[in-house]
């Protein structure tokens, strides 16, 4: 019952968990970024769905309609999407720089390269 009435939350939670799992479990930096993006997008979905008013239409002033969806979450998420795009861009730029410096985007190989270079660097 709860699953049906709250299916938007379940969808958001499922997507967020998949994204977070990818961030933690994958060793490829690009895959980590994909997971991170998925995680953020799931949260955007959560925001957008809580703005929906049953039977409400798009929030444009018109004499024919009186019930509108809440536009505020949309505006917030527009900003958050910009943040997410910037994060992705910075992340990819760093990944490219890492590929240039280390010759790989695999986390364990980067770690090995650092350990081989010596001088501390635990943790």
């Amino acid at each position: 019952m709860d699953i049906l009435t709250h299916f938007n939350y379940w969808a958001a939670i499922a997507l967020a968990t998949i994204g977070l799992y990818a961030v933690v479990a994958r060793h490829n930096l690009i895959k980590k970024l994909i997971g991170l993006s998925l995680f953020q997008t799931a949260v955007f979905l959560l925001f957008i769905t809580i703005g929906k008013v049953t039977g409400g239409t798009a929030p444009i002033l018109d004499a024919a309609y009186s019930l509108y969806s809440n536009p505020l979450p949309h505006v917030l998420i527009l900003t958050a999407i910009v943040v997410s795009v910037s994060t992705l861009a910075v992340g990819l730029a760093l990944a490219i720089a890492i590929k240039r410096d280390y010759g790989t985007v695999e986390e364990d190989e980067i770690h090995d390269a650092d350990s081989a270079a010596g001088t501390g660097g635990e943790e």
Partner: protein
Amino acid sequence: MSDFLVLKVMAKLLIPFILLFGFYVQMHGDYGPGGGFQAGVIVAAAFILYAIVFEIGTARRVAPMAVLVTIACLGVLLYAGVGVANLVYGGRFLEYGVLAHEPAHGNHIGILIVEIGVGMAVAAVMMIIFFSFARRR
């Protein structure tokens, strides 16, 4: 030029309309759905489409990196400048009502200028991101 002929012809046909649509969205942002974010991305998409379908060299010559960076900076300055201009006219930061004799009119002008600033910054930044990633092999 003979490769992907359909794609190239269609892209050539579409690009002017994409740009036009971008400007439409830009100018209707103050009263309808639309605005600088969407318009900026649409305009950038036209350039990126050209760069993908034809060749990136020409696109980069039309929109060189230095120019894009300048446009992005000017966009941010336009936005923040409107905010500060409101302070000069005796309002609060981003209180556009003071820009004209009538508050509604002032709001109209203020949002329009802010959206143009946002549009410039977003379009330029999207192109910068694309070009700087596309440059590498």
